[in-house]
């Protein structure tokens, strides 16, 4: 049950997109998001959609798993769609329901906003689906490198993120185990009011926190035993290097952002 969480899960693979430098993918994602917010017409939206679908295709990630990952968003998407549908003025009135009117402009806005959310989420899913957590944090650390001059603890932040990501599956497994153990003693997580159910979680949360602290302690000791000193003078086993593919990808990303900007400027 808990193991079915797919949000931000990494799908191992060997496609062109998988092999790109994580920094390239991060920058591409930023460009993609910028382009998505710049886009304002049917044609520019179409261009973004074509780009997204071809990226998904190239990455060989099954469309099904991307759709499955978006399930938790259903409510937000419906909410956005309905709000935009009814509360946009301008254009011809298509349908009138009591005092509410659906206009052509409203229809357009609703479609664009829903499309934007869906494309935003699936685009960022593509990043986490094709990049392992380790290389993602590596890429972030390298991209944020210049911030070190402003005394931002970049290495420490990325190490923390790396450890957090590493321990998510461990903690999920642990939660499952503790829940089973308490169920064996008659704990009931499935029935009762919300308050009762929240209370029923105490026997799970306390041992979970205790074990998380214990693990943290053990990990800290293990790191100290290996003379971990923080980022200063630390070298990498896997050096990040840009290849020709990365340049090409970044070029495509820049073209995409520029293209949508030009199309929008012409009102397309």
């Amino acid at each position, binding site marked *: 049950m808990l193991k079915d969480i797919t949000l931000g899960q990494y799908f191992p693979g060997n496609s062109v997109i998988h092999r790109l430098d994580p920094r390239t993918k991060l920058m591409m994602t930023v460009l993609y998001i910028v382009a998505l917010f710049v886009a304002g017409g049917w044609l520019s939206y179409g261009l973004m959609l074509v780009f997204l679908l071809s990226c998904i295709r190239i990455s060989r990630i099954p469309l099904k798993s991307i759709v499955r990952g978006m399930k938790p968003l259903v409510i937000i998407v419906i909410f956005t769609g309905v709000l935009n549908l009814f509360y946009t003025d301008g254009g011809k009135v298509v349908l009138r329901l009591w005092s509410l009117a659906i206009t052509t402009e409203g229809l357009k806005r609703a479609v664009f906003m829903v499309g934007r959310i869906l494309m935003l989420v699936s685009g960022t899913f593509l990043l986490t689906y094709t990049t392992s957590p380790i290389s993602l944090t590596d890429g972030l650390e390298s991209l944020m490198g210049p911030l070190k001059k402003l005394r931002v603890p970049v290495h420490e932040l990325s190490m923390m993120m790396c450890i957090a990501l590493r321990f998510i599956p461990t903690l999920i497994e642990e939660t499952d185990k503790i829940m089973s153990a*308490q169920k064996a003693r*008659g704990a009931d997580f499935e029935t009762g009011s919300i308050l009762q159910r929240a209370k029923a979680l105490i026997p799970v949360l306390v*041992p979970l926190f205790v074990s998380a602290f214990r693990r943290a302690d053990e990990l800290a000791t293990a790191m100290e035993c290996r003379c971990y000193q923080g980022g200063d003078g630390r070298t990498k086993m896997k050096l990040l290097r840009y290849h020709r593919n990365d340049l090409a990808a970044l070029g495509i990303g820049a073209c995409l952002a520029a293209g949508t900007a030009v199309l929008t400027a012409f009102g397309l």
Partner: protein
Amino acid sequence: MEPILEVRDISYVYSAGTPFEHRALENVSFSLGRGEFVGVIGHTGSGKSTLMQQLNGLLKPTSGQVLLDGTDIWSDKKLTRQARFRVGLVFQYPEYQLFEETVYQDIAFGPKNMGLDEKEVDRRVRGAAELVGITDDQLKASPFDLSGGQKRRAAIAGVMAMEPEVLILDEPTAGLDPVGRKEILDQISEYRVRRNAAVVMVSHSMEDVARLTDRLLVLCGSRLVMDGPPAEVFTHAEELVEMGLSIPYVTQVFLRLRHMGLDVPNVYTLSQAEEALMALKGGTLHA
């Protein structure tokens, strides 16, 4: 012996219908008599822990039935919950499930969930604590202040306090020192005698299961491959070794003695070995 728990042809598949599908149990059947002490041995990943969770209704078998006193525990929601109380399950490293402010409250968690009145809860908590050797002072202490061995015993008492008719333990002595091991095993035997309960114990120690149990179940590759008294199971020494298991050291010594031409029987506990050697000695003296 009157059967209390009956497992009929159960199979269990993890994550059915996904690429991660994994068969953890295949067509396992056996029945458990009241008061019986059964050991379960098997290599890591042979399905032992999965099987244990089928017995008290934590996992629902993909196919097959688990009968408690003749009724299927999955036939009714109430029965499934009842099964959790009548079949007590102690997980591996149970001390990691302690959560209450005092040891007393933690042991009382199970009995309270059963809906018993305060007096009965108190009787059961004190009974279980006394059985595993937890003093009154320790009952008032925080479970996190106890030593490792005491935590383990407090956690086991938490299941014993439900007074289950079947007590299942998944490697109850893992990670304990020899004195702690012996104490816990003795307390489990004591519980069985007092309550005439059936005990199922998963263990990697062939010495322990040989000494304590009446019957051994051997799991290998999700299947139940042997079911019989230890004396009989340990005669299949070679097969057991092939499955990544072993036989008690004393059995190994006696097998070697036989190979060397001495007329000794198959033994699997130290006391049997002693008897056999005495008989041998006596025999040669009389000859």
